[in-house]
């Protein structure tokens, strides 16, 4: 009578331990969470694409008589990517009162890429009278177009969008890892 009773305890215990043990991951440590956050932040989170129009128009005159004029109009694609700057450290620690709450401080977002794709240049027209368009003429305009686009991206809120997106992804990861609350700070 004693042996069957012992079996009746042992068999379900072994079964139960196997079932529950196989279906669980260990609780992620702070180092592990930091590593996961770093992986998320390595992705440039927001991208704006621009089709910018560049115009170069130079007219020279002598005694109010036009001597030369040159004009060119073309379009070019410019990419702007923003994300969290990983060169600066972020801090993460558990709440003393509630270990399921995390305090997280991220570095400020920044523009990570500003790229002019010269392969996409499409010229609409060129007018050369008395002098010709030189490469430096339009390179200077291309550079100012780049700065114009960068300022426009700031104005449209690319940095705020990058920060919001990074936070959303991190919160999803933390909640999936069993964290119940995240308190955000700023470096």
């Amino acid at each position, binding site marked *: 009578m004693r042996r069957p009773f012992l079996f009746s305890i042992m068999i379900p215990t072994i079964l139960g331990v196997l079932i529950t043990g196989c279906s669980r991951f260990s609780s992620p440590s702070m180092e592990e969470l930091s590593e996961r956050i770093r992986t998320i932040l390595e992705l440039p989170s927001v991208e704006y694409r621009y089709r910018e129009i560049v115009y170069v128009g130079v007219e020279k005159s002598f005694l109010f008589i036009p001597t030369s004029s040159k004009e060119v109009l073309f379009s070019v694609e410019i990419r702007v990517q923003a994300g969290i700057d990983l060169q600066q450290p972020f801090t993460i620690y558990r709440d003393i009162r509630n270990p399921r709450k995390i305090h997280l401080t991220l570095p400020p977002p920044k523009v990570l890429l500003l790229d002019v794709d010269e392969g996409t240049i499409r010229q609409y027209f060129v007018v050369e009278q008395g002098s010709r368009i030189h490469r430096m003429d339009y390179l200077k305009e291309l550079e100012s177009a780049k700065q114009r686009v960068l300022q426009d991206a700031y104005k449209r809120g690319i940095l705020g969008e990058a920060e919001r997106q990074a936070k959303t*992804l991190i919160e999803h990861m933390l909640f999936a890892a069993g964290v119940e609350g995240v308190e955000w700070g700023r470096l």
Partner: protein
Amino acid sequence: MKIRTTLVILAVSCVVLAALLWVDRTLFPLFTGTKRIATSQEIFEGLRTLKSLHTLRYIQKVVFPYDYLDPELDFDVILTTLRRGKGSVNSLLSPRERDYLEARELAERIGLKFTGRRREFVVVTAQIGVGIDLEKLKIFPSSERTIQVHLPPPRIVDLTIEDPNPSTYPYPDIPLSPYHWKLVADLVERKLRERSLDASILSAARTQVSRFLTSLLKQAGFLDIEIKEDLPTEDALRR
């Protein structure tokens, strides 16, 4: 006696198993804070709130009328086709020819000089949000760690024509009444909606969405993620 013993063993086994499972589901997480694998439903609900987060923003400047005046087309040939042909403009002309005709007619109507020595043009800025329709997103979790996602093709989610700002308009100014400006802006908006987006823009939007979903699902505990894209249709690329 044997039947009684078997029944006792079965009953005690059931009780012990039930108790272990209860401890596992209810009490164990309270002590250990175990990693929770989000269910597909939770992930799906989470994704619904992210619609505006992962669209590619495309700021497209259009040069009117030159963006529609294809140099390979001849205006006289278009007019001849219309005069000689029978049927509607849509049936007689290709989309590029219709663009040419409409842009040229409007440019002449508002008095733009676009041929010869003097070349006038208007730059119209459109802000286009490119993304995927999350209502058409399908998630198939095949096991606890494996998931398959079917993405609808990217499309224009929103499109706005922006009013030009005189202080930041770096192009030659031309005389244009508010009514004429509205006609130009309306034509540009209509053409943008009619035309499919550039392949590189669609590809960038697709990459962004895939990267975002992969990262999100990995964080939710899925190890094997397969993202497939449903084939785009002509209508899907437009609004």
